[in-house]
């Protein structure tokens, strides 16, 4: 039996959300998938979601219209610890800018940066 996770997708491209939802549902990794097309509403969701008991994996796009992926990370980091419990954030981006990678490595609230398109086989070992 594979471990399952609640997934949260944050991406301003409807197309990429669709693709990632499909990948995840085919993989059998997801017990649930919730998607946001902007970081503001995702942040509002996490700010009002105490007692989160399921292990949650967030796939966060970097270049978002409005609040960027980095802005989201910074804001998420300041949330109360009880709200951040069981939540792990991975960034998903097609960036080619190496300074983005450096910023990602340095960020305390982020686990890793994954290139787009999402590769389930690369994500799996990171979740263990």
């Amino acid at each position, binding site marked *: 039996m594979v471990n399952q996770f609640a997934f949260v997708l944050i991406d*301003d491209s409807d197309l990429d959300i*669709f*693709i990632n939802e499909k990948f995840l549902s085919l993989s059998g990794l997801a017990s649930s998938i919730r998607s946001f097309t902007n970081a503001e509403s995702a942040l509002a969701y996490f700010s009002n979601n105490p007692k989160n008991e399921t292990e949650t994996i967030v796939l966060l796009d970097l270049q978002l*219209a*409005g609040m960027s992926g980095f802005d989201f990370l910074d804001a998420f980091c300041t949330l109360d610890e009880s709200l951040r419990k069981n939540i792990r954030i991975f960034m998903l981006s*097609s960036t080619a*800018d190496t300074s983005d990678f450096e910023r990602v490595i340095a960020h305390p609230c982020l686990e890793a940066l994954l290139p*787009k*398109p*999402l590769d389930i086989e690369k994500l799996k070992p990171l979740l263990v």
Partner: protein
Amino acid sequence: MTSKPKISVLYLDDELHNLESFKAAYRKDYTIFITDSPEEAEEILKKEEIQIVIADQRMPQITGVEFFDKIRNHHSEPVRILITGYTDIKAAIDSINRGEVFRFIDKPWDHDYVKNAIENAYDIYRTRKELRERNSQLEKAYNELDKFIYSASHDLRAPLMSVLGIARLAKLDTNFTRENIDNYLDLIEQSVKKLDTFIINIIDYYKNSRSGTEISAVDFKQLVDEIKDSFHFIPGNEEVRYEIQIEQEGPFYSDPVKLRIILNNLIGNALKYQKKDNPEKFIKITIKSNAVASTIAIEDNGIGIGETDLENVFKMFFRGTSQNSGSGIGLYVVNEAVHKLNGRINVTSVQNGGTTFSIEIPASEKNG
């Protein structure tokens, strides 16, 4: 040729009759400021745009070289000329060698010699100023290029990576019905179109930033009709009602390529950022044009722009909305194009109420 701007000269000397005779001799050629007080000279430097400072070496409170030393940090731009008698020649040579003084004039001074020194000094002033301006332009261009390369490579890759994702997904899918295959093909089509729009925007940007200006008489009615037609076949646009009002009196000379870029982007945005469920979608295009200037207003009743985003809309790669997300280049290019035509652009908007862009462009000279 524009008329030569008058050179501003500040002359500091403790002998009043020197000051007076200097002013009398050169006031027709230059804008002259004279004073016998070093403090007042500094005040003048603060207030006026002085290009050339002339100082006497021998003054009771301070020497000319000391005065130059003092003003150097805060007023490095004016070119410095020292007036001195032969007895001070060593001080003068030293200061020239140390780069503090551009030239010295010996007493008693000769009219043409001084004039020549001022003209030469002004050439130096102008050359330095131009060099500074070029440098800051270059710096801006480099910064833009850096940002451009990274952002553009991301925006070029994003739709490609979507296509790659779709291809991988399709390979995993075992549902071989026509309908399901068409779904994947539609997604690929969407992504490719987005990529193409981005590339067209980049070409606009390049044309706009590099091209020389081709000036000809602009026919606004024809221009607007052509742009309108080019959008007509895009699904969804047929629901938008146009209200077009063009008053053109006499020929308006400008760069039609830039005007097309401006109108194309603004009309395209007005169409793109409509409210999906609004039954009364409209675009209002108002153009008033004569031989001197044109004003253009493009108004829509679409989704509008939030107050905090309004000041950023002309920045490169800024995207305010995730609806129908654009490349963040369009309005940047519009703004650049308007400025290259020496015009002004303004935007007002109400979130969820609509947006109005107003532009004023003066006519260009026929031979550019």
